[in-house]
């Protein structure tokens, strides 16, 4: 399939043409407009926008520590997701792929959290975390941890961010689970059968067949996890609004707050900076996985 002729190369372009056209009109154009807006002081309504150059960028970088704090908060959640959430997703995908009884039921159930709307998830977890009458505290009390009576998990500096991260991981592991499962299922059975004939045990099969075939899928799940966790918004907005005192603020809640308070231009500058950070993170990830692949 190598060394296509120029004519073939042009023909091949047709495959990506629809995606490219849609992208140019509906993604790239708004993106460029957004970048353009980030150089103006504008509240979204005024007829004239005030050109301020890089002033807003400068202010964000040097004079807005709360924004960088929010970036760290998101990074903390991301690290938790990469390890705990993906570990759980992979474990479950492998277990379900073992062709045990009730495989289908588990498959359906594990995807319930992603299916549920953010409203329900936010409501129920808030209700479980509640200091006074939450299920978590009464359960902890019943196994002997009386000191947690009245403990408001979402309002204490020490626990707020982790508590929010737990909910995000709980809601998100189902995605990783089905993508990993789809990946496991795409590995042709013949490979395993051949390995079995050659006398490889389960662990060797896992190491020499499953892992190498799954590397692109792992990369993808990792990248998606990072993007999903860094861009966390709904759950935080419905559970803590970024509180207590900004300890659960993440970049998107910050951008959203600025935008809703008439700082349209400034908030787009925040978004562009955030996009650049994500871009660098993703490139590093892809680069790392390429190296690993070789």
């Amino acid at each position, binding site marked *: 399939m190598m060394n296509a002729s120029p004519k073939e190369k042009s023909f091949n372009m047709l495959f990506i043409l*629809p995606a490219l056209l*849609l992208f140019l009109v509906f993604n790239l154009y*708004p993106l460029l407009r*957004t970048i353009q807006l980030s150089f103006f002081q504008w509240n979204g309504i005024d007829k004239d926008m005030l050109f301020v150059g890089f002033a807003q960028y400068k202010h964000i970088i040097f004079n807005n520590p709360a924004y960088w704090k929010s970036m760290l908060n998101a990074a903390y959640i991301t690290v938790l997701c990469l390890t705990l959430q993906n570990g759980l997703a992979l474990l479950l995908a492998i277990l379900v792929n073992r062709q045990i009884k009730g495989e289908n039921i588990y498959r359906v*159930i594990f995807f319930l959290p992603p299916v549920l709307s953010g409203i329900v*998830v936010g409501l129920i977890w808030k209700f479980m975390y509640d200091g006074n009458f939450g299920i978590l505290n009464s359960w902890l009390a019943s196994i002997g941890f009386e000191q947690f009576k009245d403990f408001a998990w979402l309002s204490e500096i020490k626990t707020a961010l982790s508590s929010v991260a737990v909910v995000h991981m709980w809601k998100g592991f189902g995605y990783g689970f089905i993508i990993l499962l789809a990946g496991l299922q795409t590995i042709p059975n013949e490979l395993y059968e051949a390995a079995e004939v050659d006398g490889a045990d389960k662990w060797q099969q896992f190491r020499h067949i499953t892992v190498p075939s799954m590397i692109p899928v792992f990369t993808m799940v990792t990248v998606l996890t990072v993007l999903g966790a860094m861009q966390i918004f709904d759950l935080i907005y419905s559970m803590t609004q970024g509180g207590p005192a900004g300890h659960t603020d993440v970049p998107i809640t910050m951008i959203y707050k600025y935008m809703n308070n008439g700082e349209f231009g400034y908030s787009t500058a925040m978004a562009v900076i955030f996009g650049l950070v994500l871009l660098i993170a993703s490139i590093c990830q892809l680069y790392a996985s390429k190296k690993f692949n070789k």
Partner: protein
Amino acid sequence: MNSFKAKKKILDIITHLILIAVAITCVFPVFWMLSSSLKTNEEIFKSITLFPEAWQWSNYTEALLKAKFGMYFLNSLIYTIVGVSAIVIVTSMAAYAFARLEFWGKTILFYLLISTLLIPIPGAFVPLYLLLKSLHLLDTRTGLLLCYVSGGIAFGLFLLKAFFEELPREIEEAALIDGCSRFGIYWRIALPLAKPAVATLVIIQCLTIWNEFLLALVVLQDPSKMPIQRGLMVFQGTHMTDYPLLMAGLTIATVPIVIIYLLMQKHIVKGIAAGAVKG
């Protein structure tokens, strides 16, 4: 042989214990949603009970009537079916090309296309809105759908390309020698082989479109074109949320998506590769 069987049994039991533990946490919120949807408003506020005192089935009829679900439901169905089909076709074609074919600027174009995953802009709806206005697509289903489809490209491309790359090349090469066209190989061989990945994409995109409402509300003016999430708004007042009706409404809105998942997840099963060789 017996010890092997016993070992397998123990392993199975441990597997089930882990799976059941996780499953319980997943089922609980659903149970809570259902139980709340059958309570009275007062009951919700007064006490925390697992089961309603009296089962208020009338909440469901009331929710259906109040939220005008009928009309919105049909709209959402259309948006989801059309939007997701378009995403699957557009992105699978492109993903196949990126995974298998050669053309100019391949690497740059790929990173450009998936770059939209990266810049999340809560305010992006304003440029999008103005764009649709200048295209005379404001307040049209087409306009909204185009936004949805373009919004799904990056993710779909990213997901499918990884899967296409992993498919064994031998089958395709054989078909090429048999005289299949490039498009034929994509359509008849690669796409069916990637069924688990396509099914995954369908599930995830259905979820995205079905639950989306901000863009729909901003882009559409005519209430008769609005999606189902619009109906749920009725229950969330500025100062009061009607929880039982909201939960009933959410349950109604969740059922279709669960059905789609049930239908699609069946396709994430083993043996596709073997099937393709025979078929």
